[in-house]
């Protein structure tokens, strides 16, 4: 396994939005999904996951309802709302633009200045 990366400030929200955009998930599922799609390269503090979920719900980007888990237990499922979808889209665009700019800057060679 590669060395795990610490999460950049503010990126956990995006990861959660992305994870639930692929289908409704309970909290533990969100954790698993992020680990799965990041191929375990990101270190997620489990304790900080729930405050983030509550915050996103409070902001109206995700909604929750109680459902039944795979092993027939009651669990709280989160899904993306319409507002969340738009938020994820703009955040994604912002991120990509930012990443491009950063990559450009960081890739600059002395002769290009």
């Amino acid at each position, binding site marked *: 396994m590669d060395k795990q990366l610490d999460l950049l400030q503010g990126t956990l929200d995006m990861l959660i939005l992305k994870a639930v955009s692929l289908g409704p998930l309970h*909290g533990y599922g969100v954790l698993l999904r992020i680990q799965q799609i990041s191929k375990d390269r990101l270190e997620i503090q489990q304790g900080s996951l*729930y405050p983030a979920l509550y915050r996103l719900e409070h902001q109206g980007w995700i909604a929750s309802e109680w459902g039944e*888990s795979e092993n027939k237990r009651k669990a709280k499922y989160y899904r993306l709302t319409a507002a969340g979808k738009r938020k994820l889209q703009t955040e994604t665009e912002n991120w990509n633009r930012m990443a491009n700019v950063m990559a450009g800057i960081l890739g600059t060679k002395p002769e290009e200045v």
Partner: protein
Amino acid sequence: MESEMDAELRFHVEALAEDLVRRGVPRKESLRRARIEFGGIERAKEECRDARGTNFVESLIQDLRFALRMLRKSPGFTFVAVLTLALGIGANTAIFSILEAVLLRPLPYRDPGRLVVVADPEAPQHGGFLYKDFETWKSQLRSFENIAIYYRNTGISRVALTGAGEPEAVKAAFVSADFFPTMGIWPELGRTGTSEEELHQVHVVVLSHGLWLRRFGGSPEVIGKDLQIDGIESKVIGVMPASFQFPDKNQEFWAPITTNLSWQDPALTTKIDPRNTRFFFARWMVVGRLKTGVSLLQAQAEINSLFAHLAESDPDPNRAPVRVFPLCPNLSDNTRLALFVLFGAVISVLLIACSNVANLVLARGAGRTHEMALRTALGAGRGRLTRQLFTESALLALVSGCLGLLLASFCLRTLIAFGPPDIPRLDEARVDAHVLGFTLAVSLLAAVVFGLIPAWRISQSDPQESLKGAFRSAAGSMALRRMRNALVVLEFALAIVLLTGAGLLVRSFLALEEVDLGFQPERLLTMRLTMPADVSQARTIALHEEALERAAALPGVKVVGAISDLFELGDVRNLGLRAVEGREPEPRDKWTPLIWQSVSRDYLYAMGALLLRGRYFSQQDTADSPIVALIDENMARRYWPGEDPIGKRFKGQDPRGRNDDWITVIGVVGNMRRNGLEREPVPHVFEWYKQSGSTPRDLVVRTTGDPRMAAATLRSLVRSLDPVAILSPVTTMSEQLSEQLSPRRFQTSLLGLFSLMALILATVGIFSLMHYTVAQRTHEIGVRMALGARRSDIMRFVIREGALLVLAGGSTGIFAALALTRLISSLLFGVGASDPVTFVGVAALLMVFALLGCYVPARRATMVDPMVALHYE
């Protein structure tokens, strides 16, 4: 919400645990491992709560629930704290209700701020207006919207009501037609008099609420009924609301100014025209309503210039300058001061109660530092903890506030019943919206005082320290100890201030009971005997003579006397003598207070006055013999200092009776405290009523045995003499004197009660502090004992610690008391504001209580078993 969050997190941890099992972790281990992997669950919860938006109400309910649980968990603490605070808050609420009703509540008139009284600058209660000037004032004054004039029946000449029921003498006012519109008050039933009625002297009358209830049972049919006022049928036209107590408390009716008997026939009651004579002008009172925006100063300036103008156009020696006073509750300065002193006292009691509770909270807080540290470590923010602790305090204070309110409304009834009759509007004191607001504010303020400081203190403590040291860290929290000590010092300082004030009042009260009255009050009955003004003078005199004679013959009666006024408790006016033989008459500015009374032959003997020189009235004095008088010591000193006054002659100020005769002094008696127990006796002249021409109406009956035995026979005897005679209840002289002391008794017992509360609370304060200290230092005490300290050493050690605090508080308090008692010197009698006996006595009392408070914990300390103490923890 809370349980959903729990369920969600539990699901997470359990799912994680199952995955761990699948990865080969033993099932037993899995849950623990999952929790470790998850990290701080409590912290996560706290953050979740914050994240989903702080719902104020929700967290408040949560805090309240927790606070309730905490208070229920320590019922002893809760009980003591609530009781202490309820006492403090209750006392505050009760006194505030009185203060509010008597002083703060606006007078029940339209726009009362614009109402003024125009009166004698030195004695506003005496008025001071020439009636003949009134029309001029009314038409010329520009600063006033309206002015009205009225004539008040003073205690000397009450109006008699006859007709329905037994005749009675009541206080009344005769008012000009625009009196009620000027005051801005309307009757609750019917109407008030018109200017037509005033002009034509129509006998109509507006009743007070009290008289309406008493004589007419509160029936609305009263309008149009007749009431006999001094023998004249008067038609009832209206009833004023109970709140209208003007000019005096217990005013019984208002009638047109022109229907007053002395107005219609001045000769009936006096030989002089009351409208234009200085001796009687004092009774004309003027109230005015200023125009909007006109200040007292502007009104005064206008009055001054009008006064100067009148002095030129119509000079009159009877006209005296007048001043504009704002109309305010008719309250003596001392009563006002006493109310504020009592308010200060209850605030101090509350402060002591608060410090006691703060101390308890701190003591409990010391025990809770561990809990707080744990909660901080688990992720509770400092602000959150403070809020939690403060919620507990606020809840405690509010519960106490409710209880205090109950206590106050219960006590208020007693206070009103017990209160002196001279405080206006006292009976209107009740728990109303203002009082509720005050109680709420006071409770919350108390919560801040006793809750916020400890809350801040406790949440401030370093979690690391207290977690490591666990409970033993108490010794480390020196700051906490210092704060607790400071609170106890404050308590004792406040207590000693209150005790000193109360002690001085008690000493004054005792001094008054011991005061030399100048007469013998024991076995003396008194009774007032008046006639309605329509009854002929001859019939009145006949009644009085018969009463004197027949009463003297009653079994058990030694001697009977009579005097115009038993006591003269009002202000005594300056009076001059028209002539003193062999001397120039005195100009008016040299006049001094003088009391002139008509007495029966045996009055001075019946009172037990001390005859210093000369003789009493005797058989040799007749209605036609030369006029003679007895004077008192003060009178002798005032007019004939260093001379023998016997045989000296003078003329009275008031040319009554045998108009211009010289009056010869035949005897000198010792001074009597007839014008108030607390006031220095004023010079007196006693004239025999047959020579002065006025009838003495107050009987004094000296009995041989218990005066109460003769009371009933006396009354039925006098009743049988004349059916229209107005009789007061028969009272003993001791009751009369006790009545005079009632305002003082009220102040003294209340302040005494509050200072006792303060003393007990402060004692409880030092007790609980020392008790706690001993409990905390069991270890240290054990060590000392193990090292050879004897029980008496331990005892001394504990008591010394307490005594130091008490001494610090006591000496601070004594300095404060020295400064503060000066403020109440006008309430003191026969004792200085820094009376050493009081100060020493109070300090000693305080020390005794404080030592008592320390002794019990100290004894407990000596019981410590060193073996157990060393194993403690």
